[in-house]
């Protein structure tokens, strides 16, 4: 009797488990469950350049302009705009129906305050505000930017798609010190952040903003209509294990994996219940960065020898592996974007190991061991330093490959100390297309030496001069010529070495539709069938 009761209970439990498992697999059509590429910790996308914070920003904030899939600037919150003939006075009118999540209409004073804060943090914003004389708000829906002199990248800056994005926040929030994080996450974007449900390291929840008025144009990049077709978007911040992510996707416990590990690409491709949406046609670019402050990389001739040794294919093959996900690219600006060219790239693209050895011999390299920092825990770039080490040794360098976790690397690369006293010679990283497709945000081309921002502190007055000209140039054809000149000079002095491009695949269940070419992780327009 006891045994039969026990058996019955076990069968019942199994049936309930199976039934609830099936229900779970089906999922709620109103809830989109996403596994982002990392943890969300900082909720102020202007305070940090972290991509997760940027993606969070796109969920809840709107922007004045967007950048479409072809890298063209399109209006977003702005309805119409005009520039004076001398291009020093710009007038913008906001479109109707813009409203913050707290019900207050978006006003021009919110825009001015937001731009002012962004202009203190973002590299392109800082550059823009060297031109800005003042801003004013002649009407609640109109703001003006007065420039001291004509500037060739005003709209590009306002429509900047990647970190730091000039998101529009309420004035009371935007008046927060630019070096302090905000603690009010009221936006006017397509989703509302559920602060009460946010659990760092566990989940972030966004609900549809019912009052959001999307543009009429189809979505493209960060531009076009931002339609929220699901009621709720949940970011699963706890699911970090790559295999566990795929398991959860196959079981239907999540709908989208934002960044699928390369080793699972074929598994997902073969699964009839899953898809690999083509959302990112530009991808990311690998880069080797020198420390220009110390021997031997204070010598451009040595850096050129490295450029000659660094053929892109070995890096791409080792790190990405899946042929359809990578391509070589001779440009320092993302291939497929307006300023991409092969200007000056022969030193790398038409070179070989013999040439690298000759260049190194002629450079006067004294045998200083090259300290390369290898991040062991960042799977998207961890193999690059191994390839670099092998190629450098073949070229005749002595190499000291030092393994560490990524966060140690991040801290160490900010140090200007000599490599034998805790500094470094080289690290390898990856940049999203949006961050490097233009000479202004491309941090590796900021060659103001120690005064310049980015780690490595390259110094070259000629590039500085060309970038200044680029900033002032308003003619697109001339801007392209200047971008080519900047790149040619950058290859000549080897500011850094581009190592090819790749696309980080996204995986989704087949019942998710509405993917568009966003060149980023944007979650509007998606439907769950």
């Amino acid at each position: 009797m006891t045994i039969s009761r026990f058996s019955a209970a076990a069968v019942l439990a199994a049936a309930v488990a199976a039934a609830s498992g099936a229900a779970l697999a089906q999922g709620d059509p109103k809830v989109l469950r996403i596994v982002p590429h990392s943890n969300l910790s900082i909720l102020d996308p202007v305070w940090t350049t972290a991509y997760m914070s940027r993606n969070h920003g796109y969920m809840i904030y709107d922007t004045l302009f967007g950048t479409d899939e072809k890298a063209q600037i399109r209006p977003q919150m702005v309805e119409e705009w005009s520039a004076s003939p001398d291009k020093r006075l710009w007038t913008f009118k906001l479109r109707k129906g813009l409203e913050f999540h707290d019900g207050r209409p978006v006003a021009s004073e919110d825009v001015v305050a937001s731009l002012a804060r962004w202009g203190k943090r973002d590299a392109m914003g800082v550059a823009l505000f060297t031109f800005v004389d003042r801003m004013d708000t002649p009407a609640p829906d109109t703001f003006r930017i007065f420039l001291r002199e004509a500037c060739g990248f005003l709209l590009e800056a306002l429509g900047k798609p990647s970190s730091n994005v000039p998101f529009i926040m309420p004035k009371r929030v935007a008046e927060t010190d630019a070096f302090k994080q905000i603690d009010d996450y009221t936006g006017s974007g397509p989703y509302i952040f559920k602060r009460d449900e946010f659990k760092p390291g566990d989940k972030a929840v966004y609900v549809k903003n019912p009052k959001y008025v999307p543009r009429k144009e189809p979505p493209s990049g960060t531009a076009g209509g931002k339609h929220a077709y699901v009621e709720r978007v949940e970011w699963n911040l706890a699911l970090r294990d790559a295999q566990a992510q795929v398991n959860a996707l196959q079981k239907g416990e999540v709908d989208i994996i934002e960044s699928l590990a390369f080793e699972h690409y074929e598994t997902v491709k073969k699964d009839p219940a899953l898809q690999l949406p083509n959302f990112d046609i530009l991808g990311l670019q690998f880069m080797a960065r020198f420390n220009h402050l110390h021997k031997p990389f204070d010598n451009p001739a040595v850096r050129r020898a490295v450029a000659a040794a660094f053929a892109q294919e070995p890096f791409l093959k080792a790190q990405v592996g899946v042929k359809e996900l990578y391509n070589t690219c001779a440009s320092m600006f993302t291939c497929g974007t307006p300023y991409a060219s092969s200007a000056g790239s022969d030193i790398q693209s038409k070179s070989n190991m013999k040439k690298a050895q000759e260049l190194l011999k002629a450079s006067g390299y004294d045998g200083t061991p090259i300290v390369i920092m290898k991040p062991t825990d960042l799977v998207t770039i961890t193999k690059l330093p191994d390839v670099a080490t092998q190629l450098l040794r073949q070229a005749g360098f002595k190499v000291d490959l030092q393994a560490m976790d990524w966060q140690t690397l991040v801290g160490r690369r900010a140090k200007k100390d000599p490599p034998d006293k805790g500094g470094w010679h080289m690290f390898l990283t990856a940049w999203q297309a949006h961050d490097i497709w233009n000479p202004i945000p491309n941090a590796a081309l900021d060659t103001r030496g120690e005064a310049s921002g980015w780690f490595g502190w390259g110094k070259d007055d000629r590039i500085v001069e060309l970038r200044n000209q680029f900033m002032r140039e308003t003619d697109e054809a001339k801007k392209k010529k200047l971008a080519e000149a900047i790149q040619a000079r950058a290859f000549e002095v080897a500011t850094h070495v581009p190592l090819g491009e790749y696309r980080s695949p996204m995986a989704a269940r087949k019942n998710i539709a509405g993917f568009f070419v966003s060149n980023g992780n944007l979650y509007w327009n998606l439907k769950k069938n």
Partner: protein
Amino acid sequence: MYSFLARRLLATIPVLLVVAVLVFLLLRLTPGDPAAILAGDAASTEQIARIRASLGLDRPILVQFGIWFGNLLSGDLGESFYYKQRVTDLIGQRLEPTVSLAAFTILIAVLVSVPLGVAAAWRFGGWFDRMLMGFSVLGFSVPVFVLAYILIWFVSLKLGLLPVQGYQRLADGFWPYFRHLILPSVTLSVIYIALIARVTRASVLEALGEDYIRTARAKGLPELRVVVRHALANAAVPIVTVIGIGVALLIGGVVVTESVYAIPGLGRLTVDAVLARDFPTIQGVILFFSFVYVLVNLLVDLSYVFLDPRIRY
């Protein structure tokens, strides 16, 4: 007894003090800059320096320690650099998953391992004993993540019985809460089953050789009563010690299991904090773990009094 309790509680203070000082100093000696991590990839050195100043990390270490320790004395573990939340709140959020996982794991482990260990000792040298010892070696040797992937593949993906990942809070209902904990607890319990079963076997085996067991048998007591009431009861002290250590280890964070099953517990919080060099959070959780260790050890010591009347404090 009460004076023992008071002495032990007082003894936790210097232990926690030493831990606090050591953790604080070790973190400052560890490579990595929280400000650089917070600022993001494209931040300039100037921006990083400003963030460092805003976090107070540009001050002398002694000053930093003084501020932190002052706050600690008033029960304030500080605010996470990363999450901008009180460390006590973060620990509070992560406590339920970890305690639940630990509780289910230990429950499964004890329910399975103690009878197995007793049976193996009772049938010492027989096939069951040898099989159990073989299993325990296997239980120690198989990495937790391998076992987790096998269980997920079979139970969740093939049979579709249980979820592959995630955690549901108890407040959301007992069944969702329970079914999300079954696989992680079973996975994690294997190593503890192996450990406790071995200790139980050895301990009961030793007790079975004692004179009082021979006497009990000579009196004609049933074998089950001899083994359970006399042998197991007298062998309980080492078993409870091992279980206590197991509880403390589990509360201290089971990183791999939490990662594979996406459970937002204290283990993941600790790893995330270490990777982000989130000093206040690391300091807070390590102090908390130390406190748990001390507390569990105290409880284990106290339990000896009930398990063995010969022990007096």
